[in-house]
């Protein structure tokens, strides 16, 4: 059958399943939602959206639960809505479903056309929107409804938490860098003229003018762009701590002071170019760090934004909607299907299925009855239930997780503190040496000027450049190499920790295995008709049903399409339906038992039984498939000296079974999210440097606790957020590549550091002895930087050779 693209979302499906409309052209829609949005846009005259969309595909619009009135409640208003100076309302939203810039265009266009909306701007990179509106003309719930009507969804976040601060910080750095880059570029052509004059002769007057030009450019660079170093040095000194900032600041300041002196007295050379160069290079390095913080706060906002703000409590015979902060222990809360649980509790009345995928990563809904724990962040799926609150909002699971993540984003790892203390010692020694040099030469020579020049040479020649570049240059190349293979490092310093790691902890589902079950055995008996089973599994979107559907399509052809009647899905058991007077049932043993069908089968794997008119006609065994090459890769890692362990929430049998197949000896099973984190702590106590790879929210706390966290690209947002490294292609091979690239990069870093140390050992004594002028010092400093850059580029070549083999 031919596949056609949906006129709205552009996803391709079989022509037979499409809704077809014959207008001036033939229109195909994959669902009612797409059809609705398409006609809405056409009627509003916004169909140029499809031109802008090009070949991009969209997610088909989903029907959302009716929770619009929550946006007009007092609790919501106090938390998220701000009143602007003009007396208008302002809210910050995250828009879900934005794929491309055409989506941004459409949302803005629709919002601009809505009466009462005064301002609406959407940021494409992080999908965040700022909307200002007049509350007399339109309510926020209507604005959200408008966004939903065109197939997107929106939820609020509180920008004052992290975002405002990080945007401010980023823009401040940006301005400082722009100024520094501008000044360095311009100072260079003035400096080149002056250097040329140094060798070929230059009139004193001309030289003075060039010096003044450089002075004008260097002054704002040093005091405005370089302000961060002065600030850093000041705070360092205040806390009795000498840092790299102090070396940068003092080196630049001394070179500047001497240059001003040389310019005024018209004796000697000026070094304004060195001043701006030092500031610019080091500032750019610092800026990269600020950028990564901003990205991290974006995703945290997304998680907090989906947290419920209100819950319905039952008081006597009355229902009351109160804000989450006011819920106390012992309150009875009513949950309707589709609602997200706000606080933890114990189920009292009724039973329902819950979607716990946001916490456990398991897609299968979990059936809960009276007396079972209800966890915040999970979603009630099937019926109305009442539960008793056991924890206040601030102690509930969801809140605890977001707190932990907030901490992990703002906290600095041990390794960086170590790096700082090393550079601190280095800086202190250099400053001491230059001071001694100055004193020594002044004592020998009696000339203040020559003593100062020599002391500056010492600082400039040892200036952070080679040492400062040694690490970032190698990591930059290592990271870009990794990125081209789908391995994203969030921060460069992680390469170093990764290379030193000793223990790898792996989650099972989704990391070692594919994360979805696949058919491993398929037994049929007399009377089996694949078309009937296909129709039955097609009616359910449970992962087990989907795998069986895929299996049937792969193994049977010419199956006629049949329509089932009275399809009924039975919670956590399976599906029952009727066809031609026969009763069809498909599901687990519990379903068969409840229907009074005897099965008499046992299996260590998940079992799906298909019965036709009370007779079992097919038995399907399913198992989560292990990823390709898992065994080889884990073997290779063990050979490289890594200790590999498995941490899983799954039960013992299944965990040990998989571990045996891939060759992992140490297995910790049946773990809750917090238990996984405890194991990581234990590994730390044993002195291990821990790398953890996982994909679900159940791994999030453990990921945040480990030294290096690796998330699978298809994992939950939250897992990706706390991770330091993301593997986009989900392959275990990438995990191995991550180790290889880290180790190579770290080797290059060590060579670079070794070189710059050697360079300093040779050049600093020369400078101390007065053989080096500041200009020569600046030149050799640049040359040493070049050596470091050249050595770092070798990482690329080396990996290429190996890959081509």
């Amino acid at each position, binding site marked *: 059958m031919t596949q056609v693209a949906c006129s709205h979302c552009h996803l391709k499906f079989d022509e037979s399943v499409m809704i077809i409309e014959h207008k001036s052209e033939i229109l195909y829609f994959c669902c009612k939602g797409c059809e609705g949005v398409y006609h809405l846009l056409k009627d509003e005259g916004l169909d140029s959206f499809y031109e*802008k969309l090009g070949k991009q595909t969209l997610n088909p619009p989903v029907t959302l639960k009716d929770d619009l009135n929550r946006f007009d409640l007092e609790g919501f208003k106090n938390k998220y809505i701000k009143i602007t100076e*003009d007396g208008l309302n302002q809210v910050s939203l995250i828009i879900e479903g934005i794929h491309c810039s055409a989506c941004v265009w459409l949302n803005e266009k629709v919002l601009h056309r809505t009466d009462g909306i005064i301002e609406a701007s959407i*940021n494409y*990179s992080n999908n965040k929107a700022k909307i200002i509106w007049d509350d*007399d003309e339109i309510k926020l719930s209507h604005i959200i409804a408008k966004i939903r009507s065109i197939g997107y969804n929106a939820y609020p976040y509180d920008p004052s938490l992290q975002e405002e601060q990080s945007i401010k910080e980023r823009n401040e750095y940006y301005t400082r860098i722009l100024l520094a880059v501008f000044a360095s570029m311009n100072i260079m052509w003035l400096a080149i003229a002056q250097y040329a004059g140094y060798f070929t002769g230059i009139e004193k007057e*001309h030289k003075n003018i060039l010096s003044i030009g450089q002075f004008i450019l260097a002054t704002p660079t040093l005091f405005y762009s370089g302000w961060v170093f002065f600030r850093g040095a000041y705070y360092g000194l205040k806390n009795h701590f000498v840092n790299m900032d102090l070396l940068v600041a003092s080196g630049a300041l001394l070179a500047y002071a001497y240059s001003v002196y040389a310019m005024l007295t018209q004796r000697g050379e000026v070094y304004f170019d060195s001043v701006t160069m030092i500031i610019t290079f080091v500032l750019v390095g610092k800026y990269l760090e600020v950028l990564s913080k901003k990205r991290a706060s974006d995703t945290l906002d997304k998680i907090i934004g989906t947290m419920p703000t209100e819950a319905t409590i039952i008081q006597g015979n009355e229902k009351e909607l109160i804000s989450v902060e006011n819920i106390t222990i012992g309150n009875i809360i009513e949950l309707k299907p589709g609602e997200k649980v706000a606080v933890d509790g114990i189920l009292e009345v009724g039973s329902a299925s819950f979607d716990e995928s946001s916490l456990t990563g398991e897609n299968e809904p979990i059936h809960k009855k009276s007396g079972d724990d209800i966890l915040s962040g999970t979603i009630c799926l099937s019926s109305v239930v009442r539960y008793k609150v056991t924890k206040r909002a601030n102690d509930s699971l969801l809140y605890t997780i977001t707190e932990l993540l907030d901490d992990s984003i703002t906290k600095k790892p041990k390794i960086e503190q170590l790096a700082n203390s090393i550079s601190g010692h280095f800086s202190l020694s250099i400053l001491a040496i230059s001071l001694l040099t100055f004193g020594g030469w002044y004592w020998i020579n009696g000339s203040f000027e020559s003593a100062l020049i020599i002391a500056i040479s010492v600082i400039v020649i040892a200036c952070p450049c080679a040492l400062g570049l040694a690490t970032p240059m190698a990591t930059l190349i290592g990271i870009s190499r990794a990125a081209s293979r789908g391995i994203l490092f969030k921060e460069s310093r992680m390469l170093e920790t990764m290379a030193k790691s000793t223990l790898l902890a792996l989650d099972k589902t989704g990391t070692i295995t594919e994360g979805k079950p696949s058919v491993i055995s398929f037994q049929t008996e007399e009377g089996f008709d694949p078309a009937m089973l296909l129709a039955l599994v097609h009616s359910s979107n449970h992962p087990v049903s989907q795998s069986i559907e895929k299996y049937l399509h792969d193994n049977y052809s010419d199956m006629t399409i049949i329509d089932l009647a009275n399809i009924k899905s039975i919670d956590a058991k399976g599906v029952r339906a009727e066809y031609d007077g026969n009763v069809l049932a498909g599901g687990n043993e519990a379903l068969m038992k409840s229907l009074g069908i005897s099965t008499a089968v046992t299996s260590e794997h998940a079992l799906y039984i298909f019965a036709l008119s009370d007779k079992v006609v097919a038995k399907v065994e399913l198992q989560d498939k292990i990823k390709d090459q898992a065994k080889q890769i884990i073997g290779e890692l063990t050979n490289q000296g890594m200790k590999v362990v498995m941490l899983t929430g799954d039960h013992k049998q299944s965990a040990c079974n998989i571990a045996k197949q891939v060759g992992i000896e140490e297995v910790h099973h049946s773990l809750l999210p917090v238990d996984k984190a405890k194991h990581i702590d234990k590994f730390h106590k044993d002195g291990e440097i821990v790398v953890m790879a996982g994909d679900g929210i159940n791994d999030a706390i453990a990921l945040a606790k480990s030294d290096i966290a690796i998330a699978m690209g298809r994992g939950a947002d939250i897992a990706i957020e706390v991770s330091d490294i993301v593997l986009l292609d989900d392959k275990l091979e990438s995990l191995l590549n991550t180790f290889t690239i880290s180790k190579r990069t770290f080797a290059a870093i060590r060579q670079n550091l070794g070189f710059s140390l050697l360079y300093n050992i040779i050049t600093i004594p020369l400078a101390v002895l007065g053989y080096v002028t500041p200009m020569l010092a600046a030149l050799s400093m640049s040359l040493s930087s070049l050596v470091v850059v050249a050595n770092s580029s070798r990482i690329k070549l080396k990996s290429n050779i190996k890959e081509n083999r």
Partner: protein
Amino acid sequence: MSSSIMAMMIGISTFLGALGLAALIWGVRTGQFDDESKFIDGARFDGEDELRDAIKMDEKKKKAQEKVKKAKAAKEKNYMPPD
């Protein structure tokens, strides 16, 4: 080349460059580069329609501000102390 001409050349070129820098910094400070992809897509998507929209939004904003001002003034005018 006389020194005064050289000084003037350096001065003017630096000044013009600084003007450009100031404009760029103004753009950064007012959030025009916050969304890099949107900035680039502006060239692809912005047409007469978008310009008209922008003017309309501006008018809407002015109207809303006036309305709020009027409401405030009316409130002050009709102010009565509580009994």
